[in-house]
């Protein structure tokens, strides 16, 4: 199990670094998916399968796919990659990295000096979660449904385009006129 943990942690760190440093947004997002999957693997190796599954479903499955869709719709091409390249200069990332390095050193010192302690972990399985969601908190769950409905109705209204009524003959006519 320990080996599994180290391998997946290594993958997670490598994928995250790649996600930050890629210039093309889609490449970066793909690495981000890998990073989330690796995090899920870490949870699995620690013995919490439910959280691992949630990580895959919610982060990798839903949120990142949404991100990728938006990026595809925006159709970011080479220009953006060039812009990113311009932004990612050492001057920009040196400061934050230095500060993070301090934190890293701190953490390593703490880890080296640590005594072994037993963590009290209460395992929450899917059954418990769903029982409390659909048991005592059922009304809250239904209200969340209404919350989503409010969001959808609002977005649909504000995003609605004005309907253009163009008869196809009229359209051809205007096109022809443009050609002339």
């Amino acid at each position, binding site marked *: 199990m320990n080996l599994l943990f180290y391998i997946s942690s290594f993958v997670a760190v490598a994928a995250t670094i790649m996600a930050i440093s890629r210039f093309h947004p889609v490449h970066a997002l793909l690495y981000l998916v890998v990073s989330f999957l690796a995090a899920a693997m870490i949870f699995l190796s620690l013995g919490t399968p439910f959280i691992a599954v949630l990580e895959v479903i919610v982060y990798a499955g839903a949120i990142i796919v949404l991100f990728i869709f938006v990026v595809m719709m925006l159709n970011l091409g080479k220009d953006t990659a060039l812009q990113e390249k311009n932004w990612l200069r050492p001057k920009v990332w040196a400061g934050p990295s230095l500060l993070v390095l301090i934190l890293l050193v701190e953490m390593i010192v703490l880890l080296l000096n640590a005594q072994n302690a037993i963590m009290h972990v209460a395992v929450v399985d899917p059954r418990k979660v769903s029982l409390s969601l659909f048991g*005592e*908190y059922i*009304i*809250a769950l*239904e*209200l*969340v449904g*209404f*919350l989503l*409905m*409010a*969001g959808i*109705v*609002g*977005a*649909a*209204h*504000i995003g*609605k385009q*004005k309907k253009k009524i163009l008869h196809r003959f009229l359209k051809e006519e205007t096109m022809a006129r443009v050609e002339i």
Partner: protein
Amino acid sequence: MNELQFEALLPFMVLAAASMTVILLIAFRMSHTVIQVAAFLMACSVILAMWYVKDTLPQTIPPLFVVDGFGALFTGMIIFSMMAVGLFSYVYFEEREENPKEYYILLFLATLGAAVLTISTHFISLFIGLEVLSVSLYALIAYLRNRNNAVESGMKYLVLAAVSSAFLLFGMALIYMETGSMEFERIAQSIKESSSSVLFNMGFGIMIVAIGFKLALVPFHLWAADVYQGAPAPVTAFIATVSKIGVFAVLLRFALSVNLQQYPLMITIFSVIAMASMIVGNLLALRQQNIKRLMGYSSIAHFGYLLVAFLPGNAAGVEAASFYLLAYSITLLAVFGVVSVLSTRMKDAEELAVYKGLFHRQPILTAVLTISLLSLAGIPLTAGFIAKFFILASGVQQNLWLPVLVLVITSVMGLYYYLRVVSTLFAAPSSATIAAKSLHPFFSVSTYLALIVMMLLLCWLGIFPGRAVEGIREFLLIR
């Protein structure tokens, strides 16, 4: 959940079902008129449901809700305000927006959120109710999406409300860390056992940010004027009444159940916020030429007054606050009703110049507006005076001299700008404008009737407040 608990939730379920019904009506391509009438009938049925379950109260629905007299009183105020807003909306949106139907879905959902707030006894239901309310409000504020102001103010509200929700969650998390529970009752128990808890104070202090944002209290008031100006007039009325009633109700319930007023620190924080709101709100309103912005600033001041009734934390304070909210919401609905009736197709009637010499063109509207402005200023024989009197009485009982003094002084300052508007109404008319003929005679007449009823209510509450106070007291005793 047994049958009685189910019954107690009936009004809220009817409210939720109403939004679904509106969706179905839209799906069947019903006209705006049909939807308006159906929405009105469904709001009536919510009230009927409340009347029907009144005798079975109080009911607790653990762990999230308690439906008691307090909740019923505030829910009633919310539903009545929503009905008035819906009535004003017909003529307003019929003329301005090619697509006015989704408005009613959002209106019902926002009302549902506010109503859930009034009965919640748990942080989860508090948060979800608040989110239902604010997500619907984002869309309602930006509903006239062709106007630049509307989209801008919608964005402003969205960003600030999202930040304030984050604060709220963080505060809840801190309190949960300290007490190990999110139910108000159990939080109260566990902080009673451990006397001074830094984490609880921190947590509630952070929650005040979110609550202060929703109520537009002073350090968190920057959105108020812009959003009031940019939102459509009926929606502004909705923000000013329904959303604030809901948030204030849940604040009051939380404070009562954890005995917040026994902590000197909390009293100090709320006194400072109250005094700052009264002073800053009134000062900013003094030179305002735009009536919607003026109402925004005056609402900041009025919630400062309301906090003075919140400070004592006893039965008299709760009664005073309930009466104040009742009088204030009727007044604001009347003011924004007049604004939305006078609005033209392109622009809301917000400049003070529009109102110059209104008396010579529209005597009825002028009478309504005058009475409601006098009530806001707190002139005797109107509801505003009695409401302020109750607040002063409850403050003086507890020897809260400083907030009470500030209240009196700032009320006098407030008189200046309310009377400035009133004097504009009766000035000589600038030019003779021809009144446009109304396209919807039935709804125009009913809007006028509603405005006149509100005016009479304001006078009645001002002259004979006894019946209303008794009613409020009766409701508050059901617990």
